């Protein structure tokens, strides 16, 4: 075996990678158990019987609630570790939108959709669209926790439920955020696939190869 040297960049720290994959697992269980709960009163988007049957989500309300109110603590805890890490390490600067983000985001999206040939040069870890998406995902996580506890404890936290527009509104907001996560997931998967192995490997092992 040849022992050549390679130039790499340390892209994602261990803590960031761990919390990312733990979050992915926990959020999957939250969405799944949330759908089991939602089925009992599918008020916004009707779940067709055929789909409910295929994915076996009927008559599992109690089970859904059991998982949802168990995993929620781990989801919250993992989220807090991640957010605290981002703040303390100063890494929040890599995902926080700045002044440039807002006028760069349209060209970045046009470039990604191949409408425009060249996009703005990415300085640092993430481009404008990524910054908005990742910061948005964190805010959606916060929103899910707030709308979630507002419908979980609408008497103890009646003030929060009221602030969110009442019990019915908070349930709808909680649902919309789930849809938001779903859309984020789709775009995220497509973009990760397009970015290729070098980029994806960074979320597994932390490094990106600069050049062989």
């Amino acid at each position, binding site marked *: *075996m*040849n*022992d*050549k*040297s*390679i*130039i*790499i*960049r*340390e*892209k994602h720290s261990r803590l960031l*990678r761990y919390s990312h*994959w733990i979050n992915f*697992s926990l959020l999957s*269980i939250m969405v799944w158990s949330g759908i089991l*709960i*939602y089925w*009992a*009163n599918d*008020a916004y988007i009707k779940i067709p019987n055929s789909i409910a049957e295929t994915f076996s989500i009927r008559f599992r*309300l*109690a*089970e859904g*609630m*059991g*998982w949802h*109110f*168990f995993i929620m603590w781990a989801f919250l805890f993992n989220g807090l570790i991640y957010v605290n890490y981002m703040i303390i390490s100063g*890494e929040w*600067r*890599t995902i926080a939108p700045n002044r440039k983000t807002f006028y760069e985001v349209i060209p970045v999206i046009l470039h990604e959709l191949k409408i425009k040939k060249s996009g703005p040069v990415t*300085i*640092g*870890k993430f481009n404008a669209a990524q910054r908005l998406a990742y910061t948005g995902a964190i805010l959606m996580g916060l929103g899910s926790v707030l709308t979630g506890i507002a419908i*979980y*404890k*609408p*008497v*103890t936290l*009646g003030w929060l*439920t*009221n602030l969110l527009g*009442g*019990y*019915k509104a908070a*349930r709808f907001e909680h649902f919309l955020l789930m849809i938001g996560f779903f859309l984020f997931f789709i775009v995220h998967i497509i973009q990760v696939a397009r970015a290729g192995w070098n980029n994806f*490997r960074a979320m*597994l*092992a*932390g*490094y*990106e*190869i*600069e050049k*062989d």
Partner: protein
Amino acid sequence: MKLKKIEVNSNDLKKRLFTSILIGVLFFTIGISAFKYVQASSSRVEGTPSLLRNSFIWNEKVWTKLSSHRHLSVNKPNPPKGKEPRVNGDLGLEDELELKDYSVEIISGNKKLLLPVSAFHSSPKVGYSTDFRCIEGWSEETQFAGSRFSDFIKFYDLGKKADGSYYNYVGLETPDKKYYVSIDMESMLHPQTVLAYEMNEEPLSEENGAPIRLVIPIKYGIKSLKRIGKIFFSDTRPPDYWAEKGYDWYSGF
């Protein structure tokens, strides 16, 4: 923030990637196995894997510490006159309702009473409107009126043991005993917990639990038992229909 460039040995890098992938595979294998283990686990407590049952109980402890039973369910304006309250289940209501000679059995220690419906009008009428929230996920602003449960037990001197302290639990049943709930005493003493004979300013309909029902808006609707046949007090938790079917026994907001 520009990322630093580092020069490394290619074999070390391969090892590093291999280790990372191994940890990842291990993590997901353990995670998925743990999930499947809980799902398949035969140690079920009242229809729920013991882990999730314990989680319900743990959550109950956390939220009662935050005195969830001491807050009021937010008052709402009265629903428009004549609005029919939503009817959901008819568990325990299948038998023909016999209003003539209808009586409610009460057991508190050695005391046994058979009370006519008029007995539930002995204490002052209390009425309010608030969200009635079903565990299925729907909710409806509803007006309720009846006797406050705490007033009722004071009037008939019920619910206390010889030493003057309250029993821990209240059990309620429909006359056919096909639907039954149990509730912690603190929640039963909540000012919005009423033995209701009126909903939306109309006498209680048969589907909504005539002649007398429990309304406890600080818990999911499953606890608001219709057509009360029996009320009893106990220090051990009486059976609860939906808790036996895997739901959270506490079910409080």
